[in-house]
């Protein structure tokens, strides 16, 4: 086994282990879940707000999904296959949050957004 202990085998082996580990991590975390909350500027949860998921093409933003927040202001998308997308939230009377950019490390990566989307009243 001494022939295995050289810098070529060790480097390529380490790269192989890294690639396998990364693929295992991807396989365990690619359900395509995007979850978060929508709140007002006073941090009050907003129920019934529409959250739009869109992907930016070369020229325009293409909508990929739409959902409505629950009583606690929570929303959830499942099964997305994006790695670069925008979230936009709005509710009649409560205000609107302009499209916010999100980037992921692989397509369909689960994302639980800790910082809530804040609706600002339109002037």
């Amino acid at each position, binding site marked *: 086994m001494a022939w295995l202990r050289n*810098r*070529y085998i060790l*480097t390529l082996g380490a790269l192989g282990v890294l690639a396998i580990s990364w693929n295992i991590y991807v396989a365990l975390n690619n359900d395509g879940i995007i979850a978060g909350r929508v709140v007002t500027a006073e941090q009050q949860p907003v129920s019934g707000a529409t959250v739009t998921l869109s992907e930016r093409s*070369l020229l325009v933003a293409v909508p990929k999904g739409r959902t409505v927040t629950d009583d606690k202001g929570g929303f959830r998308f499942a099964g997305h296959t994006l*790695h*670069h997308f925008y979230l936009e939230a709005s509710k009649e009377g409560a205000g609107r949050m302009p499209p916010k950019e999100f*980037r*992921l*490390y*692989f*397509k369909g990566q689960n994302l639980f957004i800790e910082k809530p989307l804040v609706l600002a009243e339109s002037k």
Partner: protein
Amino acid sequence: MRQYPRWPIHLILLFVSSLMLIPFVWVLKTSLSGENIFSYPPALLPRDPHLFFYVDVWYTIPFFRYLVNSAVVSAIVVAANIVFNSMAGYALTRNFPGKRAMILLFLSCMMIPFQVTIIPAYLITKKMALLNSYLGMALPVCSTIICIFVFKASFEAIPKSLIDAARIDGLSEWRIVLRILLPLSKSAIATNVILAFIWSWNNFLWPLVIIRDQEMQTLPLGLSRFLTVVEDTTGALYAFCIMVLLPGLILFLLAQKEFIAGLTTGAAKG
């Protein structure tokens, strides 16, 4: 003899080495932050570094396919270079009529740029029905004159008595190369591997001429395609450059000791 302190020269060398690294640092920094060269105030370290530009590259073009294509072509080129160059290098260590003319022919051929021979090379490849294939891409760099001379220098550095002893023991010329000369020429092999790999890996013009199928493109062709696909390329373009450079860089760092030894073999021969 008076010994002078060595730290001043080391300090100068360190400074010059750092200057040489600036382009690499700049490319790496831009790939991590997207800041272009005009960003103000200038900074050595990237602000808010992230790896998302690498993700963009991975998904915008079929990067893995290009990587595999480049790897296959490079593997063919490296293997062919070791086989053909070692044989040619050994032949040049032997005495035969016209050896000097042959060496002069090789040296003069080094002066001819590839662009001059690209049309005949294309026609030959077409006649061999190798257009749009891995072998077709590898063919023009399957043997390189510089690498033949690297092997020649390495073989000449091996004591002649060793080859004579092998011949007395009944070894054929093939087995002398395979069993005696090649195991003693690891540095020449490493030099061949690195040079052949880098030349093949970075080859742009020849694959551009003979490849028609998008699935057969290599990384340098992918880079030019990437520029046509992505509008705002600052960060992603540099990330692509790093991803293309990385395999060659790893190979060079792994084999640099043998590489330098291979290039300097015979250099100080008296």
